[in-house]
């Protein structure tokens, strides 16, 4: 009996790990790919190592883009739905709402949350779950323009597919910079 319960606990641990892997892999394969502009800084996570904190142009949404209009400031942790559509090379916000809505044909709907430092009066600060990009040790201080390719599955939960430094894959570009 004890062995069965022990195996059950290990199976639950493994189920979470594999479930997360499956969700992320499915999103990477099936999600719609969008490209975004960023500005990085480079802290370190105790368990996951060096990473870039990515701040996107779409992280601050002007209140004027909300439909229906916002009557008051949103508290932190509130879910917000954002529609982005291509403008030149990158995707930019065309509409935001507190309720899920049907986006225009060329737009992609992303789920976001208001961030804790949401204190601006003219815009709402959002987090998409795309704010951390983990990199190889000591390669978290790049020089150049960073762009992100993200995937957005039908659930709206975006994840990072690839990061580019001056148009080249990040790891490859950083190898040259660190040599």
């Amino acid at each position, binding site marked *: 009996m004890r062995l069965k*319960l022990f195996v059950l606990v290990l199976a639950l641990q493994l189920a979470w790990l594999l479930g997360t892997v499956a969700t992320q892999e499915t999103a990477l394969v099936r999600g719609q790919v969008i490209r975004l502009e960023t500005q990085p800084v480079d802290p370190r996570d105790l368990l996951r*190592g*060096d990473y870039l904190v990515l701040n996107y142009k779409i992280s601050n949404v002007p209140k004027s883009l909300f439909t229906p209009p916002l009557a008051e400031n949103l508290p932190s942790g509130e879910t917000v739905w954002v529609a982005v559509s291509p403008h030149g090379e990158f995707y930019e916000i065309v509409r935001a709402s507190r309720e899920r809505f049907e986006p225009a044909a060329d737009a992609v709907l992303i789920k976001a949350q208001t961030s804790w430092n949401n204190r601006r009066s003219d815009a709402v600060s959002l987090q998409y*779950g795309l704010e951390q990009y983990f990199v190889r040790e000591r390669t978290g201080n790049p020089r150049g323009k960073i762009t992100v390719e993200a995937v957005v599955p039908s659930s709206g939960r975006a994840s990072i597919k690839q990061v580019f430094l001056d148009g080249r894959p990040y790891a490859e570009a950083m190898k040259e910079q660190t040599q």
Partner: protein
Amino acid sequence: MKFADVQKLREAGLISDEQKQKIVEHFKLQEESNRFLVIISFVGALLVASGIALLIAANWEEIPRGVKRAVGFALMLGAHGFGWWLRGILGKYPKSGEALHLLGSCLFLANIALVGQIYHLSSRPPNAILLWWAGIAALPWLLRSKAQHLLTLIAFGVWFGFEVNQEDSLIRLHDECQVLAYSLLGLVYVGFGYALRGSAFANFARVTERLGLLLFFVFVYPLTWQGFLDDYPDAVTGSYWILPAMAVVVIALVAFGTRKLELDRQWRWTWGLTLAATAGLVVLSFYVPHERIWGWNNNLSPVNAFAALGLFVFCLLQIQVGLQERSAFLVNVGVVFIALDIIASYIGLFGTMARTGLMFVVSGVFLLAFGVYLEKKRRVLLKQIKTAKIGTETHT
């Protein structure tokens, strides 16, 4: 008496093999080498877990993510499987098996980090620790492992620390107020330890109580520092319900658990009420005004002064409980924190360089003398415990 001493007596021909065996059984002595090997095994497990965590953090991009995942998961399951084989099937190496289970539980956290790193997942930092704790919480009870139990207590404490510090948390407390929550968590562990006594998992009780007491002392001690929890914006804001809720949990656990203490009725009530009142006072220190209102130059807050006094009384009562429970740990910790409490109070009473300099000289001399007195007193108390223990064992 140590096992090695009995061995020496046997080698000198002063006792026979039979007498040696009787002495070992009577005092329940164990070979010290076993203990050393246990420590070595657990340190080894923690080193391997830390090493793997660092290798994951180094993030070798040359290794495909499928290989990283497979290796990570296989190591975790392998550690648990090998541990089960050593303990449950082979039955010869229970401590090494326990160390491998510990490694497996640490590797679950490493795998959570690995998955988060591979897919660049951004989430609230406490959530990963909560997931880790939830994943390993059942293992101590299933494996009957004290080491796993200690790990889950630490995991819960780490999650609690992250959560209390998290900006968007329901139980968020600001700055210095966080120590109040940590000290109350210590008392929760103490009560939980008492509740475990006499249960099917009675061997988890001592480690729970000790961790709880250490947590309590370490985090309640700053309250005795002058200026701590001082009146400034945001100092005493945040969640207004978490501290009273924790105090209620402490009181419930203590009410249930103190019945199982090896104390007479009067001392069970005294110690139970002391723990409950201490929880209440810690909560109260959050709500009362924190202005400095008295002392030289009005530099002393009532919170710091009452905390110093309260800690002193708590330590004295704990020493008495330690004597009755024959616990050298309770006595030693009580004595150490009486000394620290006195140091904090002395420093708190003085302000300028001249006064502080003078105070350091006076209190240094005092502490030298007081240290000798405390050490003598501590030895007498420990001697009393040993005498009582031997008396009881001989009696039984």
